[in-house]
């Protein structure tokens, strides 16, 4: 693969990555020594600078990621204040409810209950500070378990989790519980 092709792959991968990507991972993907990847990212970052792009290629937390250019922060801030929808989506509300009532709970368990992948929703909820990793599953895989935060309680006006409205009459029949539990065990 030519260096310019390698650069394209790095651009594509960093564009879709949700977290900083360690150079080692990029090296594996490109089947190239890490040193070469570092040099490649360096050149890319440099080119964005000289082209005066609105984004930068930053080295953070042991990896590379795209960020908005610091000079443009005022615009980004205005965009975030005006442009973001201030309502919680139905998907986010459901996921938050699962974390609130079932914590500590893994993403796989949330997905099993909601029937869809919850990764991006959980990331958003964590970014907003409503949920956070609280433990690791003791089973194989050691999945991260999530719980709600103090900010969550504060925003909902709750003293503690004990003050969440009891599910009570919502509790489903034993057959449904069985199905649910079978689903939860499957991960």
């Amino acid at each position, binding site marked *: 693969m030519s260096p310019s092709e390698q650069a394209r792959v790095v651009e594509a991968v960093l564009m879709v*990555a*949700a977290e900083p990507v360690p150079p080692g991972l990029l090296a594996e993907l490109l089947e190239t020594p890490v040193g070469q990847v570092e040099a490649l990212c360096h050149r890319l970052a440099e080119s964005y600078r000289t082209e005066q792009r609105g984004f930068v290629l930053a080295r953070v937390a042991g990896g590379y990621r795209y960020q908005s250019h610091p000079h443009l922060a005022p615009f980004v801030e205005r965009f975030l*204040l005006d442009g973001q929808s201030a309502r*919680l989506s139905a998907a986010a509300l459901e996921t938050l409810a699962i974390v609130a009532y079932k914590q500590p709970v893994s993403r796989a368990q949330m997905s099993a209950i909601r029937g869809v992948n919850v990764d991006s929703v959980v990331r958003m909820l964590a970014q*907003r500070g409503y949920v956070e990793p609280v433990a690791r599953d003791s089973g194989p895989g050691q999945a991260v378990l999530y719980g709600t935060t103090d900010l969550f309680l504060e925003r909902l006006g709750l003293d503690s989790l004990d003050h969440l*409205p009891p599910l009570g009459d919502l509790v489903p029949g034993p057959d449904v519980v069985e199905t*649910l539990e079978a689903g939860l065990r499957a991960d």
Partner: protein
Amino acid sequence: MPYEVSTPVFEGPFDLLLHLVTVDQVDLYEVSISRIVDAYLAEMARMEALDLEVATEFALITAILIELKCRRLLPGPGDVDMDEEVAVWEERDLLLRRLLECKTFKDAGALLSRLADRASASLPRTAGLEERFAHLAPDLLAQVTPEDLRRAMGRLVAHRPRPRVDVSHLAPISLSVADAMAVLRERLAPRGQVTFAELTADLDDHLEVIVHFLAILELYMEGLLELEQAAPFGTLLVVWVGEGVAASAAAGLPARSSLS
């Protein structure tokens, strides 16, 4: 999602009909039911174990074919020639339209799949907020109450799919016999006598005609009307003999006692 359930060959009766007609070139009206049954038994024999869903599907399709044949055997609403001819054509056209519509959306589904495949080669950026801007994000919980959470959880628990009996092959009946009886009382009482064809002239749906016919039989059993037909397949005359006739145009008819 670990796997997708897919019915082995046919997805619903239209799917089967489409297959029979377009691939096997079967003439639905001419073919004997037993030939279809044979074809289906052979299909099921190829399966490793008897699948209840497929067996149901098979029963359902047979029922539909019988329904098709029955519909054709039903006498048309009017006298012999033109009306009947037209009714048969209309019925056939309706079925053809439905099959074409079904085929169209089958192809549309395949098209959506191709679009989705093409789109999935190019994945979106989802990283979202950088942590330095986190404090600027609007409070998404501003409108949310603890009760909202409880309800959301309730929806999740309640929405577990449960096994259910598929009754979709039963055509929806918008009109009950009781409804039709009430309608007929209203229409017959002032007029005294009227032909069945006239009574049902404004009905497009065969099923509604059948419901009206059943309603007439009910009213006959209650002794509220008489039926007159000069010859088989001849004009069916419905004569109102119930209360309310005296004031109507049919006042001259002799009162009759209940037959039931």
